[in-house]
């Protein structure tokens, strides 16, 4: 998702450059999601840095995760990873002997460092579990509508498709973020395309429609399955721009909307609407007179450029309250539409399909609360 921001290949930095690590990880493994990438890079950081005391480590972690956050336009997804990682450390350290035999910090550290890959494996296993779980939602002759490039969703659909021929026969309507007329066509296609081709290779009929055709397609569909970048405390999701719209339409047509998301995507945010999202994306630009395209273009480029320069090393936040306040300002502006996100409130979501089973939106907050309190 973030791949459009070319990773700054300046490895000559004094210490370990977490940002570049993060991006390299992302670009290395297509299946890697930002949260995992973040965790990975944090682990890498730990390995690189010789710190030994607990407090040091915690400081380092929080600080570098802040830098990481600020380095990308939309840090919601990755912050889920970094927060999870930090909380995990704190929790385990709070509980002496949690790791049975050894039980000291060194041991824990050892465990973390050694099992870097393991976590990725688990992340992927989680995805597989979700696919299994979600497959049950797909019945004989049903039509599924989806959007975005979520890996989980595609895994889910493919799992269902593989169960052919004895499995359920279903159709997929794929809403592509931008109509083919768009300037960033290739990329938009690229998002859904692999899934679409795979599905078709499994002889699952797939229809591609632009968002403008949503209402038209609505009567045909039986359920909506979407992915999410982050799942927030109230059970709402932050996802590809347009998901909210799908949710609204689905609700209006009385079709269920399911969200497939791994539990490590749960973010500690409580947005009540778009405005609360800690991302700055000026999708709606009010302009006095219409400006011609290339101008817009270069402006965009400029935005990206200076975005890279300013990385304000935010002083790490003890109290979450002002952290929230800070974060609002942090991060850079999202400029290209396909990176833009929106917030889908929980009341539009029928259920979340996680590796821990199918949760009602309100169950999500419980998980998070258990994480933070």
């Amino acid at each position: 998702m973030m791949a459009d921001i070319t990773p700054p290949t300046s490895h000559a930095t004094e210490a370990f450059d977490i940002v570049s690590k993060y991006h390299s990880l992302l670009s290395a493994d297509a299946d890697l999601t930002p949260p995992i990438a973040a965790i990975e890079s944090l682990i890498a950081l730990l390995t690189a840095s010789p710190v030994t005391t607990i407090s040091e480590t915690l400081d380092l972690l929080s600080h570098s995760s802040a830098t990481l956050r600020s380095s990308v336009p939309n840090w919601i997804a990755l912050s889920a990873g970094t927060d999870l990682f930090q909380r995990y450390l704190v929790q385990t350290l709070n509980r002496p002997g949690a790791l049975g035999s050894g039980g000291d910090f060194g041991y824990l550290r050892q465990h973390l460092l050694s099992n870097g890959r393991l976590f990725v494996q688990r992340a992927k296993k989680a995805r597989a579990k979700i696919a299994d779980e979600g497959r049950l939602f797909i019945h004989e002759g049903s039509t599924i509508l989806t959007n975005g490039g979520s890996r989980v969703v595609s895994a889910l659909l493919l799992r269902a498709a593989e169960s052919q021929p004895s499995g359920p026969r279903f159709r997929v309507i794929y809403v592509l973020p931008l109509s083919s007329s768009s300037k960033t066509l290739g990329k938009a296609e690229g998002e859904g395309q692999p899934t679409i081709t795979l599905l078709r290779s499994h002889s699952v009929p797939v229809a591609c429609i632009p968002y403008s055709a949503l209402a038209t397609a609505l009567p045909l569909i039986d359920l909506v399955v979407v992915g999410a970048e982050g799942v927030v405390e109230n059970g709402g999701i932050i996802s590809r721009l347009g998901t909210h719209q799908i949710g609204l339409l689905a609700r209006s047509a009385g079709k269920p909307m399911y969200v497939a998301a791994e539990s490590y995507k749960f973010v500690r945010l409580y947005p009540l609407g778009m405005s609360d999202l800690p991302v700055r994306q000026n999708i709606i630009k009010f302009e006095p007179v219409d400006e011609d395209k290339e101008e817009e273009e270069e402006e965009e480029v400029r935005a990206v450029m200076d975005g890279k320069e300013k990385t304000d090393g935010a002083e790490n936040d003890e109290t979450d309250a002002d952290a929230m306040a800070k974060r609002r300002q942090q991060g850079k502006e999202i400029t290209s539409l396909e990176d833009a996100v929106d917030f889908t409130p929980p009341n539009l979501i029928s259920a979340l399909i996680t590796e821990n089973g199918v949760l009602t939106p309100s169950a999500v907050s419980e998980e998070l609360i258990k994480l933070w309190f």
Partner: protein
Amino acid sequence: MAPDSGSRTPGLTSFLRSLSSEPDETCIEQFIALLRRRQIRHSRPCAVATAYLLRRVVAQAKAEPGKLVEAARLLQRVQEVGRRLVAAQPRELVVGNVVRRVLGLIREEQDNERGEGDISGLSSEVGIESGLQTPQIPSLGKGDPLSSLNGTTRATADMQALHTSQSSAGVDTRRTTQPASRPSLQPSHTTFAGAPPVTSMFSLLSHPTMSSPRSSPAPASPSGTATPHPTGSNDIRQEVIEGIGEIIDELEQSDEQIASYALEHIHANEVILTYSSSTTVQRFLLKAASKRKFTVIHAESYPNNQRKVHALVTGNTNSDHSDALTTEAFHKTLTSAGITVILIPDSAIFALMSRVNKVILSTHAILSNGALVATSGTKLVAKAAKAHHVPVVVLSGTYKLSPKYPYDPDMYIEYGDVSKVFPYQDGELVESVQVENPILEFVGPECVDMYVTNLGGHAPSYLYRIVRDQYRDEDVDI
């Protein structure tokens, strides 16, 4: 099975009688057959039968010579039986529920075996009691995390224990504070529990040795060899059997418990609409009638249940009460309790809804997302209520609450005897028209405003909490 006289069609009673005499395998097969032939149907009979059957199964579980029965073995046995029962009649969700409850019991015992001290002991108590009485004890016990945290060796069971207790504490608060359907209230009460954080979200990072219950199907999965045998020679079966006994009690008491909330929900001179015949609702209304005067509009639910409804209203309950074992309690009719009863055909429901203050319904089963599987026609009532903004209250014992998520609603719908729609002998249409008679119906959670279980009132979106108290996550699919 001598007592089963020729003049009797096999049913619940004959089955329960035979339980004492027959070996458990036979009983299982018999029960399966009865389920298949619908000779035991409706939630409570199924639940009761299952509970008694499992009690017998547990009692007859074989141990290796010399040794006591191990939890693991017992677990396998019950699981195996449970699978067969569920397979026999997937639509009777309560069967699965009871099986899960029993499995939960066994796991608790298993945790005890692992030398888990007071905590999981307490939690096992919770596991059972949460269904039975108001779970004050656990919530007090967990008032301060420390007390539960004093340096015991940690293991999954412990977390489970805490988790359970905490959530049950949540339920506890639910009972006191009126539930709101907005999740925003969530933190306010869950924090009461103040249990130490144990979250499945760590499953990603967690160290193999502390795998959370979800990531590994069964804690310290079978072959109890590793686990130390209980020092006291108490056979695990005893506790489990007692536990099942408590479940059975719960099954019998749940109606009264639900009824005990009647006065909170029914107020003087209200007009209550109810649908189909349910002893739960019946008792609820009767209880309220003891203090208040109100009117009940009773829709007859043609074609599957109208006879029973009429019987209920007119008071000659000679027709058997599917939903109850003991009919004696129900000879007292609503009218005799001083309630004004209006019997209406289903077609009049919408028309009359505008006069109604509250709709009180019973259900066949509740699914984890708060959806109902109920007598067909329930949705009609619920929707009519929605249209007139009349609150819909659903009464149900927690034993009807299934951890299953309705992936495929059609799966739960049973199509019944067509000849009830029109009699066969004037079957002009037999070839020309296809007649259908769905007995059950799927009602989405959005149709229900509130559930009253034997634990109190809950909003649909909170049912998952009770599910979690009641069932171990590893048992969700048996």
